[in-house]
């Protein structure tokens, strides 16, 4: 942990803007309590996915299927940043917080778009990261928390944007960085690290919300002698075993457990690290007060496809064979949709089915363990092709759950495959260390694919797909918002559009082109009784990279302009 000193103050460029009006608007800032986080008010959007359970659901219904066609922009604000914007507008009683690439944080009047304060961070000159994005802030008490790429966790005063404390998570020169929004439970500010392509050993760490003092740190790859270490059969492979934690966890107030997704094993080829390699490509259940790992579920053992399972599952109850199950639901990057059960003692497999074409699993046993078609498993010196490609049936963009429809909504990608052949790469701290060179990462789509992106709706209890909207000439990189007004909202396509669908039927009800492509989660809130829908448009990182590959393979010339803009929409009174 690093206490804030003069150095840090000078490194963080803080702009005090419109001091009088900002003070007036933040003076009555509403502290965020544990109780408010457990049951967020409908008018607010207090965390990345709207609630601890990760539903990305707003119960607000003034904008609905009957009037969304009249929706128009109310205000917009340029973030001044390029690259991939992946942060939702977080709103607490009329104050909006948006983070941007490189951990800039903007505080705005949620009704008017007036800037209240801005926090900008200066990166070390020799810093680099595979993804420079940021996935949102967390609120607690009178502070705003954000991760910086270096990687650090930073606490800001919600009223002024001034740095209260910052804590160094790890040394960036060894490949660690951070992009996720923190998760805060019982005054513990929890965050994880990225770096699975650089030979890191993943972990989740918790800091005291007031002081920044480290409370606990739990590695996602066990050391020798710890439970799960027997799944690292070759000595020392665990030290650089990956299992990064680059997406925010979810929390179940009932079992009092947090759930975190872990990334790919490192390097990418399983024959270089024999064994199941726990807890890579898994969901782990951690006690938020102690960091103790209570349970886990591994989606696929000995990962060799770069299929991170970094998204935490949604905490959702469902019915199976007429029986109510306290569950977890997760569309996995490996192309399967999973139903799991949760309890104070851990996680159990219930059922699964593929939601996109997947040719690696021959079957899945009663415990949820897949049996592989070994011809589809790449290894060192062995080339193999597989579907879906390493970007998976879906990548990080959030799915959503609507309790009114009983459906989950998935931003999926279909009709793409990949191939890999591994080699042994020299490990150099902080350098690319996957076992494959970039030119040798195979990505395949047809010259004229039937479609690529899809928005899918599944019955959470019936286990069946209810509807699907497809996008012929674009992948889908858009996190989903669903609402009490019967809507499903998302961007994510290369035509820059933001869309509203009927949550029951999937019918397109409204769409509008924005400045750039939308990779960020939409949110909804209300001020003075008026409902707003907000989203940030700003294309970059993997979606941009993948678009370049698709252009090459198909001959398309689809260019998506960069540049971040916050958009806030409403229906005229």
């Amino acid at each position, binding site marked *: 942990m690093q206490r804030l*000193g*003069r*150095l840090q103050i*000078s*490194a963080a460029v803080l702009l005090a803007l419109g001091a009088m009006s900002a003070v007036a608007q933040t003076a009555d800032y509403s502290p965020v309590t544990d109780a408010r986080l457990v049951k967020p008010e409908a008018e607010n959007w207090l965390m990345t996915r709207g609630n601890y359970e990760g539903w990305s659901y707003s119960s607000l219904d003034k904008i609905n299927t009957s009037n969304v066609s009249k929706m128009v922009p109310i205000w917009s604000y340029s973030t*001044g*940043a*390029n*690259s991939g914007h992946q942060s939702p507008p977080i709103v607490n009683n009329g104050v909006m917080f948006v983070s*941007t*690439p*490189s951990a*800039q944080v903007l505080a705005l009047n949620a009704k008017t778009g007036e800037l209240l304060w801005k926090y*900008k961070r*200066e*990166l070390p*000159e*020799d*810093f*680099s*990261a*595979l993804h*420079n994005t940021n996935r949102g802030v967390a609120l607690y008490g009178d502070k705003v928390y954000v991760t910086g790429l270096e990687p650090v966790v930073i606490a800001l005063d919600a009223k002024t944007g001034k740095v209260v404390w910052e804590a160094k998570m790890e040394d960036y*020169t060894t490949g660690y960085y951070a992009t996720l929004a923190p998760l805060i439970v019982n005054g513990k500010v929890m965050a994880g690290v990225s770096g699975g392509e650089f030979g890191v050993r993943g972990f989740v760490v918790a800091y005291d919300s007031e002081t920044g003092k480290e409370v606990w740190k739990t590695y996602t790859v066990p050391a020798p002698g710890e439970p799960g270490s027997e799944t690292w059969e070759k000595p020392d492979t665990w030290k650089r075993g990956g299992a990064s934690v680059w997406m925010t966890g979810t929390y179940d107030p009932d079992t009092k457990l947090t759930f975190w997704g872990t990334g790919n094993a490192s390097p990418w080829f399983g024959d270089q690290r024999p064994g199941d390699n726990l807890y890579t490509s898994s969901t782990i259940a951690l006690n938020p007060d102690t960091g103790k790992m209570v349970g886990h579920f591994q989606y696929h053992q000995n990962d060799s496809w770069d299929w991170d399972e970094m998204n935490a599952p949604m905490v959702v109850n469902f019915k199976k064979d007429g029986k109510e199950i306290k569950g977890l639901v997760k569309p996995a990057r490996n192309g399967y949709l999973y139903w799991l059960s949760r309890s104070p003692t851990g996680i159990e497999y219930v059922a699964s089915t593929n939601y996109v074409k997947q040719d690696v699993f021959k079957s899945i046993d009663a415990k949820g363990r897949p049996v592989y078609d070994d011809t589809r498993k790449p290894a060192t010196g062995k080339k193999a092709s597989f579907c879906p490609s390493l970007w998976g049936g879906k990548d990080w963009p959030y799915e959503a759950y609507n309790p009114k429809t009983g459906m989950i909504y998935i931003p999926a990608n279909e009709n793409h495959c990949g191939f890999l052949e591994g080699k042994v790469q*020299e490990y*150099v701290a902080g*350098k*690319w260390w996957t076992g494959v*060179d*970039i*030119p040798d990462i195979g990505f395949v789509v047809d010259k004229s694919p039937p479609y690529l992106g899809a928005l899918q709706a599944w019955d959470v209890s019936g286990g069946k797909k209810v509807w699907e909207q497809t996008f012929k000439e674009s992948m889908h990189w858009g996190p989903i918002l669903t609402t009490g007004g019967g809507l499903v909202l998302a961007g994510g396509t290369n035509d820059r559009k933001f869309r509203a669908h009927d949550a029951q039927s999937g019918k397109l009800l409204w769409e509008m082109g924005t400045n750039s492509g939308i990779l960020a989660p939409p949110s909804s809130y209300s001020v003075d009784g008026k409902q707003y829908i907000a989203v940030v448009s700003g294309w*970059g*990182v993997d979606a*941009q*990279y993948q678009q*370049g*590959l698709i252009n090459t393979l198909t001959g398309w010339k689809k260019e998506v302009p960069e540049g971040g803009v916050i958009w806030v929409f409403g229906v005229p009174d």
Partner: protein
Amino acid sequence: MCSEESRCQPPHFDQRRAVLKGAVGVASLPLIDLAAAVEPNAMRPQAGDVLIHAQGDRRGEVITVADLELGGPQQLAWAMDPQTKTVRDGSRLNQVLLIRLEHEELSPETKTDSADGVVAYSSVCTHQGCDVSQWKAENKMLLCVCHRSEFDPKDKAAVTFGPAPRRLPLLPVKLVEGQLQVAGGFRGKPGFKDM
């Protein structure tokens, strides 16, 4: 000295000039401060430096033209002061990539700063600062590991694909009595502009 309280200023590609000016007392005070802030190992490659292997079995050994495979791929290198043996690895932004190509393949401007077909560039991508450490043999392009920006080593590392906004800074090299040496500072600022 570079201290936490003074904050180390980033070394600039013209820092040797700054040192010299400071030494004869003609520079302004900030210029003297800048020169004083840069440790020799953090200075950018300087004219007269030799180049050494940055990784692999021969890490630390001086690179000769014969060490570089004709036609690629590139080798990562650090500059080293041949007198003091100071390796300029104090900043990632000092890292260099070396590649040997047929002289006739090089554009006229690239030839000017090459030596026996060897050209040198900053190995730090101008997009997000990742390593340009990979090689695309099919079209002889330098490749960034992060976002697949491609640079043409035959044409002053011009961007041919991907999100990088500008070419890699070129580092002039020369042969002195058969020894590969740095001929001058980077032709541009290495690294990327955040946001």
